[in-house]
């Protein structure tokens, strides 16, 4: 069986995708390395170029691992509501480390794994930007 996919730009960020005799409208935004794609109520995000392995979007609070140290970063601009642990605290995966406040809501930041708090880079009431380092876990 032969099937063809034909992609035609029909407007700003809007594409007609013809496949198996069907018409689908697909919306695309963002650079090729980080595409946002909307189709039929679903949103997909990633790098979909031919030679790039599929990347799943990060889940949970972003945690950058540097050697044995895991950096806990703010997932969005926010106000630090409270810091629940101090340097030296032992934490278990899922424990609340920090509570951020944004858009009238509280966002608990949880430990991505077991560890010990190696550094705290924020304090209560502070405004932090997205990706700002909040804490290091060892």
């Amino acid at each position: 069986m032969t099937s063809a996919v034909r992609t035609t730009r029909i407007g700003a960020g809007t594409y007609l995708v013809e496949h198996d005799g069907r018409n689908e409208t697909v919306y695309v935004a963002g650079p090729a390395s980080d595409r946002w794609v909307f189709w039929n109520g679903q949103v997909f995000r990633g790098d979909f170029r031919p030679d790039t392995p599929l990347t799943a979007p990060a889940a949970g609070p972003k945690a950058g691992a540097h050697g044995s140290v895991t950096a806990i970063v703010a997932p969005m601009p926010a106000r630090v509501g409270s810091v629940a642990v101090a340097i030296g605290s032992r934490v278990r995966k899922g424990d609340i480390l920090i509570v951020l406040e944004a858009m009238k809501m509280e966002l608990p930041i949880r430990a991505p794994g077991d560890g010990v708090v190696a550094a705290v880079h924020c304090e209560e009431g502070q405004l932090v930007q997205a990706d700002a380092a909040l804490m290091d876990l060892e």
Partner: protein
Amino acid sequence: MIRRVLIANRGEIALRIIQACREMNIETIAVFSDADARAPHVLAADRAVAIGPAPAIQSYLSIPTLISAARAERADAVHPGYGFLSESAAFARACEQAGVVFVGPPSEVISRMGSKIEARQLMQSAGVPIVPGHVPHDQSDSGVRRALEEIGFPALVKASAGGGGKGMRVVEGIAEATGAVQAARREAVASFGDGTLYVERLLDRPRHVEVQVFADAFGHTTHLFERECSAQRRHQKVLEESPSPALTPALRQRMTQAAVAAARAAEYRNAGTIEFLVEGRGDGANFYFLEMNTRLQVEHAVTEAVVGVDLVRAQLLVASGEPLPWEEGSLAQRGHAIEARVYAEDPSREFLPQAGRLLLYREPRMPGVRVDAGVAEGHEVTVHYDPMLAKVIAVGETRDAAISRLAAALRAYPVLGIRTNIPYLLAVLDHSRFRSGDIDTSFLDREAGDLVHSVPEPPAFLREALRQLGDEADEPRTTTHEANTDPWLTLRDWRA
């Protein structure tokens, strides 16, 4: 008649009010914080006034600033919208003192209904059912146990001084009563230094059903039927509809009459909502007063669709001293309407609120669908305000038709650049319990919490289409569509 309204709000509700004013030949004055200098509501109004920095406390919540703006612009009325200062008795009073009409009830009504204790007493005296509960006179173990027995199980025992669940125990039956009372008292003492206990009926899987009421200054108080708002996630309404799938005609009759009695007892004026919890099913179900919202609701559009009225127009008429614009007994529900709130939040990451730029934003456009939104493509969604981007209201001849239409609209509503709850809303609309209409206020948290727990994989055709796109960029978007934080191309001033 009101001629010039200052709108003490932003976003979709400010736009909604501007629209109503325009159709009534009322001039509109928008207010804006530094973050909103070029927001849609500012562009849509006839005039606009800067009221301070981005944080709401310094702008949209600043009573003196708003009153000065209203005076400076010679506004004869202020519409507070919902949220912000809409239920602030102090703001209503400040308007009254400044000689500006507050589009809402008098300040004393706001403060009366804003006090849980006063409101509860008022309802009780008006014969409106409230959740049974009281502070037992005899605070001994056996005294509190007897009070629990009288109220019936399951029951709640909690710290009278407290709130937020501290010192609260669910008591399923008499056997566990003494233990629960003692534990609750210990926690009450520890948390509040006061061991006095309060006992209350625990409602069994209640539904949230509210009744829209409206009253004028000529003694007319009417209701505009109910809205079913049981689809809540962590006490945040997600989907609202009318009629309620749970109300029989007899129950509807009892509840709407209770709501009118409640509004009359409160000496209410203008638009308000009586929220009830409903326990049980059918004609014999029980309902209990929860609270009164002394303002326009987010979900007012559901009532507008089903009852065929314009609530904002009616608010402005009544605030102008006109009688209610509806004939006695002429209002009725017709068809079905359902509203979805589109939030900037990521359902696959514990509903984390999202901020960022709307890289692409296109609203669905189809018969029977209304979209009330306060954002536009290229705009920045900031952390300063509510994460609700838009409301989508679908109306149909039947509940099924309305739900199908809402789903069709959401499937044609691309929002890119930040995550939204649209995939979650679609999953809820597709859930068999939701489709059957048989849900209670804990449904979403209990059964639908993980509906969108993982990000789906694109289907094969889509993967191929994206591969074909390769590096192609389609980026003039942010320059052709404006960004509210972009440098503005401001042309030279001209003075004559």
